[in-house]
């Protein structure tokens, strides 16, 4: 298992994950701020603007040419939400030169490029972001938001969260809204950028064969006034269930159920909650899959996901609109079955094994390793893979029953065709 080394230097948290398992070296800078209605759109647009032009490489084309020169290094910036944090991740992955005929210091150049992207963006003589870049990226970002609607499962998921968490930051989409993006100015972006530089927490991950000295030497000194709070979001259990319906011209209807759980990544019962979700809808042997898909043939897919930093369990099924009532009851009954202890010791052990397997498989990829490690940053609680596995192995039937009993249905969202 890979041994992580973490250091706090130059205003960065540097996480080194030495490994020769990969034919590439990967660097990811995760930039974390609170998820807020006022800043989400500006940060999302900023990510796209930073991605498009730097001082040394002032256009997308220059950036591409440089990356191609680095043997097609992959470069991207994503904004996501992790719990109620808004995380901007800048990722550069580059071939390890030991597998090439050419002798070029690719890892060093890739890291230098990442540093350039965040610290030396392309600015006009007046020191602001370029209007042309801003306008192009506004269009592209709005387009990305619009196209969410074309993936109906994803759209239903976004809509469920908007309804369920309408008074909480978690209801925000990490890209912001089209209206908010339209109103952003170059000044707003500069303000967001300055705030990010001075206040956000920077976690740099290096996976591969680079040495600690090389990584640290590549980083500039960052003057910071860091906001490192890992504020736990509020998560009030619902008093009643609200139901929302929407019509679209679609063949297959989407039924999404949002539940709340008080158990989160930072809690001691986390492993039990993970197993609880695994039994509910996390795997092909789970209650939802077996009962909604296999026994009743009601759906092609039926599954659930556990948002562990926020404390949500999201269950979904693609169904025939006529089967709404029946499917909804069967889905809710599967959770009740867990509360009643209606699952065998074998099913429990199987779920534990599947969950362990998933964790180990995740740590076979550089992206997975970084994701796993970053949970600690988001939650404020360290849980390395060995501990995590041990906690999973210790989960008992009663633990699962206790967790299931705390889960409450909050919101039902149903997207269906015209005739339903």
């Amino acid at each position, binding site marked *: 298992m890979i041994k992580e080394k973490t250091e706090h230097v130059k205003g960065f948290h540097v996480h080194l994950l030495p*490994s*020769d*398992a*990969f*034919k*590439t070296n990967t660097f990811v800078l995760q930039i974390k701020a609170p998820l807020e209605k006022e800043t989400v759109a500006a940060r999302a647009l900023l990510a796209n603007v930073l991605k498009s032009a730097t001082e040394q490489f002032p256009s*997308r*084309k220059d950036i*591409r*040419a440089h*990356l*191609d*020169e*680095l*043997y*097609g*290094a*992959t470069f991207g910036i994503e904004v996501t939400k992790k719990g109620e944090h808004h995380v901007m991740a800048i990722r550069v992955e*580059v*071939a*390890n030169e030991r*597998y*090439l*005929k050419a002798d070029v210091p690719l890892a060093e150049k890739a890291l230098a490029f990442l540093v350039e992207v965040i610290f030396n963006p392309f600015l006009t003589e007046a020191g602001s972001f370029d209007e*042309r870049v801003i306008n*192009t990226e506004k*269009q*592209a970002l709005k*387009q*990305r938001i*619009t*196209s969410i609607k*074309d993936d109906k499962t994803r759209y239903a998921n976004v809509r469920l969260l908007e309804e369920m968490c309408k008074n909480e930051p978690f209801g925000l989409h990490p890209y912001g809204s089209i209206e908010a993006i339209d109103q952003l100015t170059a000044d707003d972006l500069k303000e967001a950028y300055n705030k990010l530089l001075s206040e956000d927490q920077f976690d740099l991950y290096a996976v591969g064969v680079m040495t600690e000295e090389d990584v640290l030497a590549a980083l500039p000194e960052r003057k910071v006034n860091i906001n490192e709070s890992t504020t736990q979001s509020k998560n009030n259990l619902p008093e009643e269930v609200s139901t929302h319906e929407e019509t*679209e*011209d*679609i*063949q*297959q209807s989407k039924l999404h159920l949002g539940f709340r759980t008080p158990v989160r990544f930072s809690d001691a019962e986390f492993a039990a909650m993970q197993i609880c979700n695994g039994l509910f809808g996390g*795997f*092909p*042997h789970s209650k939802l899959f077996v009962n909604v*898909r*296999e026994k009743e*043939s009601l*759906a*092609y*897919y039926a599954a659930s996901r556990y948002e562990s930093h926020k404390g949500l369990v999201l269950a979904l099924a*693609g*169904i025939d609109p006529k089967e709404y009532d029946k499917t909804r009851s069967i889905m809710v009954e599967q959770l009740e079955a867990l509360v009643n202890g209606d699952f065998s010791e074998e099913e429990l052990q*199987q779920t534990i*094994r*599947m969950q*362990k*397997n*998933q964790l*180990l*498989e995740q*740590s*076979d*990829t550089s992206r997975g390793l970084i994701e796993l490690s970053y949970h600690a940053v988001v939650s404020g609680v360290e849980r390395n893979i060995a501990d995590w596995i041990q906690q999973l192995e210790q989960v008992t039937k009663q633990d699962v029953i206790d967790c299931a009993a705390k889960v409450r249905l909050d919101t039902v969202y149903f997207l269906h065709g015209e005739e339903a």
Partner: protein
Amino acid sequence: MLEKKDFPTLKETLYQEKLDNGLSVFLLPKDSLNKTFATFTTNYGSVDDHFVPLKGEEAVKVPDGIAHFLEHKMFEDEEGDVFQTFGERGAQANAFTTFTRTAYLFSSTEQVIKNVHTLLDFVQHPYFTEDSVEKEKGIIEQEIRMYKDNADFQILFGLLSEMYQKHPVATDIAGTEESIQEITKDDLYTCYNTFYHPVNMTLFIVGPFDPEKMIEEIRNNQAEKSFDPPEEIERIFPDEPAEPKSQEKQTEMSVSTPKCLMGFKDKNPNRQGEELLRYELSIQLALDAMFGPGSEAYEEMYEEGLIDDSFSVDFTAEKTFAFSLIGGDSKDPEELVARIEKVLSSFRNNEISDELFQRVRKKRIGTFLKQLNSPEFIATQFTRYEENGMDLFDVVPTLEDLTHTDVNKALNEHFEPTQQSVHYIKPKVKVDA
């Protein structure tokens, strides 16, 4: 005999053996992984719908979607669901059907040998009943319906049905809601017996294991089973004209942004082996040079808001068909098509320069190394290469050997205006009742 092949530049060692019953086995030990990933693949996909059955005389035509239907049904036997057997060991199993292959796979981090036996055993043990076949129809109908709402899927199959006049590549892999109703238990056995013979199958395993021990287990597993003597499978493909059926088509769907997809139908889809590898890499390099994110055209169109991140290019080649794809979401898809045509015509006249060639080749080499990080990529792609007489681990040396002349030759051969088709998807106009 287990043969060992070293790839020193890539620091990989591959072991291979053809068993007595004809099964091809490839083992790639990698101690750095936690998981073992295995694929058991038959050289049989949705296009193989017309063939002479094993021990038969006359050719039969089977219903559309049967290869995929068979894939679904393989997971069930007398004792129930084989997902369950893998699941009890914490393993994940899955399968997929393409135009030309059906692959069964698992990944696991414990009890790997047992899982390998299960993989071989369940795929080599067909068990279909009338009841279970009927029940599966409901599940597959839902799957087909899900694809009906998927615009990216619809734009591709709509385009293929413009490009191909007779070839079954134009048929949805899962079939239609109607065609799957015709499938019977006997049809499934016919297809199974013909195409799931070991001689038509490949097992590829990558993970942290000892290759000698692994091959011993596989040999023993196969020695316990008996199979009919292999026959050469006679597959029948229609005489497909070189030209596309039509060059333009439009479909309305519930989408928010219009989409367009342009395809070029290759006139010579019979290349195999080294010839195919060189041609395929050349077309990929040409596509990247002309339309990749580093190209002039991409940058211009992106700045004008004519394309977004969904814009992409692709090239597919198998034994009886080959085509390239260019397209994505666009607010003005007609203009996008006009621009793509302009770029193609300019490159046909002026060629890809050596400098541009060098750049996209470097990029392709780095991308390939990145792909080798993925056990899933290695196992599935190796099998595809193998079935087309190519070797996945030859990609870098072949790239190094290519010149910009090769790329320009392939470009001129493939991207001819007569071979072009376009499919547009436009948002449905809502009519108030």
